[in-house]
């Protein structure tokens, strides 16, 4: 339950007279390794979360900001191969770690079999939870390719979806398991073109730059 502060929607802030030099001004320069690339973060407040830095400083808005309190999984990223909520990690705590975001799963314009299955099975509606599910399903099927339904449900229970009721997402996971089991190459994670789907998309693709 939140405290009853001046701003009821915020729990982290302290009321009182403004300081001469508020904490947020303390800035620094540091490097992060994101999707195999070294990225420099300039002049950033050290209190920023990894989610904020990815989204607002590094141009990687694929990790989503649904709750920013570790409850919904929409900001799931891999930190040294482990799924974490980027909203619960301070960016500076990720220095020296390998960070992989949804943007790093495939080369541009490719989708993985998991991404393709989510679209084909109807597992995407508004899409806000989707990147988090994509990351979580990739990690689950890498770790446990033959996960049974209860294991799949348990593994994905940290990812909230408000649109689909999860039925089509489960269907997508089953489809991927089936097709990977049938495929002679087995566990490939390589993307495959999804060209026909890229046509006719709403023109809000690419970066969020509206200038």
């Amino acid at each position, binding site marked *: *339950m*939140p405290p*009853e502060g*001046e*701003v*009821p*929607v*915020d*729990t982290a802030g*302290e009321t009182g007279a*403004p300081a001469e030099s*508020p904490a*947020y*001004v303390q800035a620094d320069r540091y490097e992060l390794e994101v999707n195999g690339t070294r990225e420099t973060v300039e002049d950033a*407040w050290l209190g920023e979360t990894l989610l904020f830095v990815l989204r607002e400083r590094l141009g990687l*808005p694929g990790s989503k*900001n*649904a*709750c*920013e309190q570790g*409850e919904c999984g929409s900001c799931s990223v891999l930190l040294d191969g482990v799924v974490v909520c980027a909203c619960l990690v301070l960016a500076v705590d990720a220095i020296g770690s390998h960070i992989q975001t949804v*943007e790093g799963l*495939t080369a541009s314009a490719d989708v993985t079999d998991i*991404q393709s299955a*989510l*679209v*084909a099975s*109807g597992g*995407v*509606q*508004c899409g*806000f*939870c*989707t*990147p988090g599910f*994509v990351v979580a399903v990739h990690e689950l099927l890498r770790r446990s390719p033959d996960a049974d339904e209860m294991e799949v449900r348990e593994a994905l*229970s940290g990812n*909230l*979806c*408000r*649109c*689909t*009721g*999860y*039925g*089509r997402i*489960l269907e997508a996971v089953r489809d991927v398991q089936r097709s990977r089991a049938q495929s002679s190459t087995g566990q490939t994670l390589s993307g495959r073109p*999804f060209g026909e*789907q*890229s046509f*006719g*998309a*709403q*023109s*809000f*693709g690419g970066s*969020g*730059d*509206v*200038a």
Partner: protein
Amino acid sequence: MTSRSGTGVADRVTSGIRDRVGDSTTRPDGAQKTRGEFAFSSDLWMDAMLWGKTLRSPHVAARIRSIDTSPALAMPGVRAIVSAADVPGRPTFGLETPDQPVFASEVVRYHGEPVAAVAADHPEAARAAALAIVVEYEPLDPLVDPEAAISAPPIHPDGNVFRHLVIRHGDTGATGDVVVEGAYEVGMQDQAFLGPESGLAVPAEDGGVDLYVATQWLHVDRDQIAASLGLPVDRVRLYLAGVGGAFGGREDVSLQIHLCMLALRTGRPVKMVYSRDESFFGHVHRHPARMWYRHHATRDGDLVKVEARIVIDGGAYLSSSNAVISNAVCFGPGPYRIPNALIEGYAVRTNNPPCGAMRGFGAVQACYGHEAQMDKLAAALAMDPVELRLRNALERYDRLVTGQLLTGAVPVREVIRAAASHPLPPTPDPAGPMMALPGGAGATADPAHVRRGVGFAVSMKNIAYSEGFDDFATARLRLEAGVDGEPIAVVTIATAEVGQGFVTLAQQIVREELGIDRVVLGPASTVDVGSAGSSSASRQTWMSGGALQLSCVTLRSELVMRAAELWECATAQCIFDEVGVVRVATGERLSVQDLLAPAPLETEQEYHHRPTKALDADGQGDAHLSFMFAAHRAVVDVDPELGLLRVVQIATGQDVGKAINPVQVTGQIEGGIAQGIGLAVMEEIVVTEGKVRNPSFTDYLLPTILDMPDVLATVIEEPEPGAPYGAKGVGEPPTISSGPAVLAAIRDATGLPVTRAPVRPEDIALVWDQGTGKASRA
């Protein structure tokens, strides 16, 4: 009429053009969304943009003595602070009546009401500055009881009663052989869309503003923003940014006006993104309801009369309360033949959080009442609950309690039979995984004590806007030759794609009507096209679909006219088919490509649905366009000692008219059921003395993938006369009767009355007598 079960519906392929009406076409934005590249409203950015933050009242009701922004303005990085005194135009906004202040000025009427907004260089600077604004409040006694609000001193100049509506139908003095009575309650549900309220406002050179925002209805937002900014509507331009779900919660203005004020004040782009906490304060919720019902029936089980009184709490401001209470009253008896009725509804103003639209509004609350009553009546008559419902089910050419004659598809019996005919799940295995028991990972339930119940519920709701509202949608369509000469259809429509999949349907409709494979959707905005109306009331398939179909038909005629001119023959001699235009007499052909070679074709069409009428003083009138019906059967396991539940299975039959995209229909059904189950067993905004106690996903629980049961769905396709392709809406019905079916199953499992949704553990455990294994008190 046809029906189809399950989800593995095979795609139809016709004349080489795939992905037409009836096919399970995939979303055009799907791949982008899976790659994280689809730009939602919180993903937008511009160079030199500022960050906005709202200051909200910590009080439920208070007088504002003073606001001192000077300490906050002096903080580093702070560029502007705006409050009520800075609103350039109309100080209030509202969907129907502008009764809600842009910022509270003299009085605060609910916990979390906006008081001021800050723009700063960094979100943390904005947040710190909001905290540094000094507001002197004089707290007032809040009015929080909706019953008391009816006669209490007004807390707003417009009074406390938003709407009082009475339906008198047939002989209101009639009585039945068997009478059952009950009181029911529904809590406050949150839409909990995952993409928080967010947007980017950019000041324009003409003194106006461009706003990129997630909303359900661009044009009505624009009108409200322009009024409060004191600008002509053409200088306020709205563009739909990616919408992360809506479910009714984006019908009302939230941050739009604040954001535009900050951008105009600073002359810089301003971005605002609500935190999850703030989102709970930043939008309207589902109305809590208190309901009393008395049903009369003959000994044979024919309904004689329904009496009801329904009070919904609209909170501090009107929003769409008037339409919500109308639905609750009109559909108060459910989808049954009721010769006599006396139903009274109140929508009232209190100091509780404002309530407005959420999926199925009005019908959801009433369904908890009428379906509990049907079970009670079945018990009193010693009849099977499903039989009782079948016996009284509405049919075509029956009348509603509003006197409206049902002239469309009314497959109530079909949806009931479909839901009832799905196989029941296997009996629980005591040696099965603990995760599958109530309590799940907590592993708390004693398998031997778990009881299983089965419950049934049926519902109805209107499609589109009612009671005389001139409901319309606009579509613009341009046909042109692409660089390779192949025709391209460009659709410009202001329909808010909120996840429901209208973008997919738009492509399917153009392919169906014109046989053009390449269909491009332009951005949705207020700039290039007229209003599409709201993405709510399950109306866009019909309304925007209708406008687009009309545009296609118009351009088809123009293609035929072009052909007739070229051939110098009558247009009656020319027929449009899948490939182009054929000259009947000679068999000559011109392809769409040929016909577009001289110049592109373009049209903008408005589609209006059949006019509806206001309800008269007795609540009588043809107020609604059309109706959707659904039935749900729930199987629930209950651990009564701990009051823990697990919904095991939902089976459903749903009337859709026509499934334009069967996979998307399945997605709507499953997703709607998840929200219905949520309201039934876990979702509630806890409000005590007007204060919101659980504004987070830690304390406000949403169904997870572990909470969702298997869903067995049968879609009933009986075409709706007058609807494009015969299609009804599909979004709302799954949310309406799924929850009441779950409550019926809990009653079946425990024998407890269970009259309130959501059912909390204490509602079961604290009235359960462990010694007797029965209800200790009822």
